[in-house]
């Protein structure tokens, strides 16, 4: 049995804040070599300018690195199969080839066309909350199901399967669980998606899996279709859901800012950008591998080394904006790195923004007395997880 790795430094938080040690690294040496928790050491980059540079330079900082955990028993063919279709595991031009197939699906205009349906989904969930509460858990009743249903409809995944895949991916990304278990879940996840892909190949529907089969079926292998499907399903519901939960909590802790978002429709868009920056749910994104010797913040790093980018400290770097530790939903925080940077910048960012733009104000207006149903100190944050979040958010109104 494989022991779960200890929680690595770059994933530790003090509620909404990066732990002090992380901030100190940004202020002192800027880059530190540390244990990743994946059985390897890596250099962690913490400053805004350095993170932006690393993420923008796929030539020197590759996503297609050959890193494998020491106890990885997969053959090369198995690893190639597991990687297929995962956009985050490739550099251009292989990455560009896959991303080009998906970009038309996530344009700003395409997202606007989804708006009425997202409004309907948000309203349905608010109605259900109003019928069953107060109190209610905002994570299971609002934050998780809304993006899950949206990505299910977009991708062509039966929403009836949600408990199964939500459970599975939630554990898959939980680094406190044993590696053996997470590998078994990864296999199950793959089997689940391969059945959906087989259906789409037999009878392609109007959803994204159907589109990929119809328009790119000659160019994509079945393994690639499965990989794309898995990535979009996980990224579609494990991210926005945590922003909706943590974002609501952040606003509840800053009542005057909450009041602004509730009252003024024009306040929503800048507020979302600031919440993205301040919360930075993704700790580091995908580890990069240096292709040559590089120097970051005065630290020399050899070729073939692993490099992590710490997004929470970069997004709270005074080099990005003044008074970075403060949440200020009025400022809009242009240039934040919560969606990453470079060619791997979040494909679903326009969808995530649209979902949040609809969900936050709708929630706040439906429940003018929205408040925490338990003391703040009792809330359980989801540590040890690839994406930061709340386990539950009990609220009343």
């Amino acid at each position: 049995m494989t022991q779960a790795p200890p929680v690595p430094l770059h994933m530790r938080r003090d509620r909404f804040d990066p732990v002090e040690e992380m901030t100190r690294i940004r202020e002192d040496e800027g880059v530190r070599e540390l244990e990743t928790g994946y059985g390897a050491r890596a250099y962690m980059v913490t400053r805004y300018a350095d993170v932006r540079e690393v993420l923008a330079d796929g030539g020197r900082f590759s996503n297609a690195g050959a890193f494998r955990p020491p106890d990885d028993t997969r053959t090369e063919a198995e690893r190639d199969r597991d990687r297929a279709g995962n956009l985050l595991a490739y550099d251009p031009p292989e990455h560009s080839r896959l991303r080009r197939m998906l970009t038309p699906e996530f344009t700003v205009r395409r997202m606007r066309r989804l708006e009425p349906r997202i409004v309907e989904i948000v309203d349905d969930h608010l109605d259900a909350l109003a019928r069953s509460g107060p109190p209610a858990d905002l994570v299971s009743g609002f934050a998780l199901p809304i993006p899950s249903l949206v990505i299910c409809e977009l991708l062509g995944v039966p929403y009836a399967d949600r408990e199964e895949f939500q459970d599975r991916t939630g554990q898959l990304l939980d680094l406190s669980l044993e590696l053996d278990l997470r590998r078994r879940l990864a296999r199950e996840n793959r089997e689940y998606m391969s059945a959906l892909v087989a259906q789409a190949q037999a009878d392609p529907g109007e959803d994204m899996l159907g589109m990929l089969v119809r328009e790119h079926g000659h160019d994509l292998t079945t393994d690639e279709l499965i990989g794309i499907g898995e990535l979009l399903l996980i990224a579609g519901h494990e991210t926005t859901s945590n922003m909706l939960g943590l974002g609501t909590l952040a606003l509840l802790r800053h009542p005057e800012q909450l009041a602004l978002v509730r009252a003024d429709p024009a306040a929503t868009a800048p507020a979302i950008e600031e919440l993205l920056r301040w919360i930075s749910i993704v700790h580091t994104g995908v580890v990069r591998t240096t292709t040559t010797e590089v120097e970051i913040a005065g630290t020399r790093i050899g070729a073939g080394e692993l490099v992590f980018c710490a997004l929470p400290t970069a997004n709270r770097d005074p080099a990005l904006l003044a008074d970075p530790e403060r949440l200020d939903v009025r400022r809009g925080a242009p240039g934040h790195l919560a969606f990453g940077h470079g060619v791997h910048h979040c494909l679903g960012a326009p969808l995530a923004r649209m979902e949040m733009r609809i969900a936050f104000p709708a929630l706040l207006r439906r429940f003018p007395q929205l408040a925490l149903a338990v003391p703040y100190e009792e809330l359980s944050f989801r540590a040890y997880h690839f994406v930061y979040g709340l386990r539950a958010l009990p609220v009343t109104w």
Partner: protein
Amino acid sequence: MTIIADRSACIGSGMCVLTAPAVFDQDDAEGLVVLLVAEPEGDDARAAAEAVQLCPAQALSSSGEQSGE
């Protein structure tokens, strides 16, 4: 100020469309950047300059002075 958009570098993130909607668009077929106004002025020029800075794929650039600055 003249804006230059490199569609071969574009990843369709839509940042420019959100930042300067009067200057940038995306085409439906590929989801890639379409330049609506090559020489924006006033507020549009300021927004376009911001979009150049924000583009995650560094697909945008500008040359010349921003008018009114």
